[in-house]
């Protein structure tokens, strides 16, 4: 049971990290390699508010979300100037931005590792397992954020327009959807989600100016697991990945963790490149 609790917490953490990346990539086709650095930025904002002003971690979420929303809009303004082939060029530009952000963070925050204190643990007799308040926070935040985005995408007119943009930008444009506005909204919402993930990333792992590649990689992997534009799939993908990793470590050993994950990822790309929860027979449906 403890393994399951840990797996769910880890998976929720993965999904939270991937949410902003997946939304921006789905709607705008921007392959944001600076995603991890933006998460770190949110983490640093939270860290200094937490350590410097003594603000509770949960209260650092709004300022982090606001700041990252702004950062994402700046990113959008930069990427608007990128020419075709858009996907490839955004890859190069965001890679460059990641380097700039890494070095700027090194100068501003120094190379020290930063950590937001460890959480309290509880023993749940019904589950016969320990659970920490960090795990609970990450699980609930991830669940709420995913459901909110899912609701936005499925139940609102804006969501329909966003989904139409994900499926076919040109067709969406012909249908009268202002694709540029959709892009702006995706960047803004994605930025806010990154800002939501940053503080919880800092609370779950640690902050270092050059630690952005891990969350970026995680976001890419979970997005591939889920399939483009499938928000519910992100959470399920995160849980699945978390469970696979935890079970691998527990039954086979820590050294197998990355290998098993990589093998599953390769298999997925070969057998179901559109994502684990995609419905190939029903194109256009959002899970």
């Amino acid at each position, binding site marked *: 049971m403890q393994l399951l609790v*840990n797996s769910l917490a880890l998976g929720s953490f993965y999904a939270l990290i991937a949410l902003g990346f997946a939304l921006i990539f789905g709607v705008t086709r921007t392959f944001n390699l600076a995603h991890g650095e933006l998460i770190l930025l949110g983490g640093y904002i939270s860290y200094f508010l937490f350590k410097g002003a003594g603000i509770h971690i949960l209260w650092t979420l709004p300022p982090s979300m606001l700041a990252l929303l702004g950062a994402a809009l700046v990113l959008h303004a930069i990427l608007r100037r990128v020419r075709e082939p858009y996907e490839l060029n955004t890859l190069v530009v965001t890679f460059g931005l990641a380097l700039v952000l890494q*070095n700027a963070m090194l100068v501003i925050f120094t190379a020290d590792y930063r*950590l937001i204190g*460890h959480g309290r643990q509880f*023993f749940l007799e019904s589950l016969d397992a320990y659970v920490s308040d*960090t795990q609970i926070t990450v699980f609930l935040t991830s669940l709420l954020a995913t459901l909110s985005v899912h609701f936005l995408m499925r139940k609102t007119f804006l969501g329909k327009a966003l989904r139409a943009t994900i499926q076919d930008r040109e067709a969406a444009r012909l249908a009268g959807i202002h694709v540029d506005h959709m892009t702006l909204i995706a960047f803004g919402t994605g930025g806010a989600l990154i800002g939501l993930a940053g503080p919880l990333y800092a609370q779950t792992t640690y902050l270092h100016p050059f630690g952005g590649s891990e969350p970026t990689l995680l976001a890419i992997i979970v997005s591939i697991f889920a399939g483009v534009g499938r928000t519910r799939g992100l959470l399920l993908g995160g849980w699945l990945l978390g469970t696979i990793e*935890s079970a691998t*470590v527990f039954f086979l050993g820590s050294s197998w963790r990355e290998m098993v994950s990589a093998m599953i990822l390769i298999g997925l790309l070969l057998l179901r490149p559109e994502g684990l929860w995609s419905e190939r027979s029903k194109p256009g449906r959002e899970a």
Partner: protein
Amino acid sequence: MFLVASLAWSSGLGPVTAAGTVGSPGITIGEIDPLTGKLAKHGQEIHEGILYAVEEANSKGGIQGRKIEVISRDDQSLPDVAINQAEDLLYRYKVSGLVGGYVDSLVAPVSELAAKYHVPYVASASLQRTLTLGRNNPFFFRVAHLDGIVEPLCSFLEKVVRPASVAILYTATPGSTEFGQEVKARLIRSGIDVKVFEKFRPGSPDFSAFLLKLRADGVEALVCGGFFPDHLILVRQIREQNLSLKAYVGPWGVAYPSFVEEMGAAAERLFGMCAWNQGITLPGTETASEAFAEGFRKRFGKTANTTTMHGYTSARALIAALEGDLKSGGSLKGEDGSRRLRALDILTPMERLAFDEKGDPRHYRQVVVQIQSGRLVAVHPPDRAGGHIQWPAP
């Protein structure tokens, strides 16, 4: 402007020079360290230790009246960049010696180039045995050695902790892998059951499943050959999962004031290892140690740690060798510097430094420390202990 200059520096776009500058022909030494990238924290600590040693020497008149200039280069924590930077220092700047380096994957390629150009290289933090074992590189020296960590750690476990079973977790880096294998072999020989022996990738975000296994196996002590950030996550998850261990020992990354600062109460009673820290110094070097600690704080506005001391010691060794060379009328040729290093015997706060025929330090030996009320207290070996162990730990 400041930001641009800082970015240029931190990106390794240009050389960082220090201390030299005067009109008389100076002596140029080269430094290669990970000033940016994943290993930037420790690379910068070594860099500051080297700068401090050079500035200290220059404040005393340099070497035979000649100022020392250090050209610092950033390898960005990448071996291929380390090679390029070393080539540049050796070929273009024709430095009289090389110093610095953190982790074997970055030190090894530089040591090969030092041999190629016949220039002495004193590595600040290198452990891997194969780097010196059975190789004939008369230009490579290092101030640390794996035996100086494995021996005190194992004797601590065997004689003090005496656990029925241990888990060894090590990272997929050459030095840590060798460390893990050495510790495992030694503990098995002494009758301690190594129940879990696992490798992990540095930077892993989660250890909860691993810790669950320790609980299931009833492991009493955990030796983690990970680095500073790995301990941050691992220790936090140990606390969060309420895992009870007789001892948690982290040879790298725990015995740092900054680790204690970040972890707070969660760091209490953990065991770490260090070659030096303020208040933990080689007997007979107390005055020099305090002078270093105070001088460093004044110069850099921060507390020196064991990694800083490794940088300082390596630079001291190179400077002493070059000084000896010039004093005896030498020409600062690589062969002469190398010969002088081989004959070197100096006392530093970290160790009595003399090299064996392979370039390894003869007397390097770390101490086991325990974090007690936010302080690092030396607890093993007995001749270096500055306090008693607090149990239960952690």
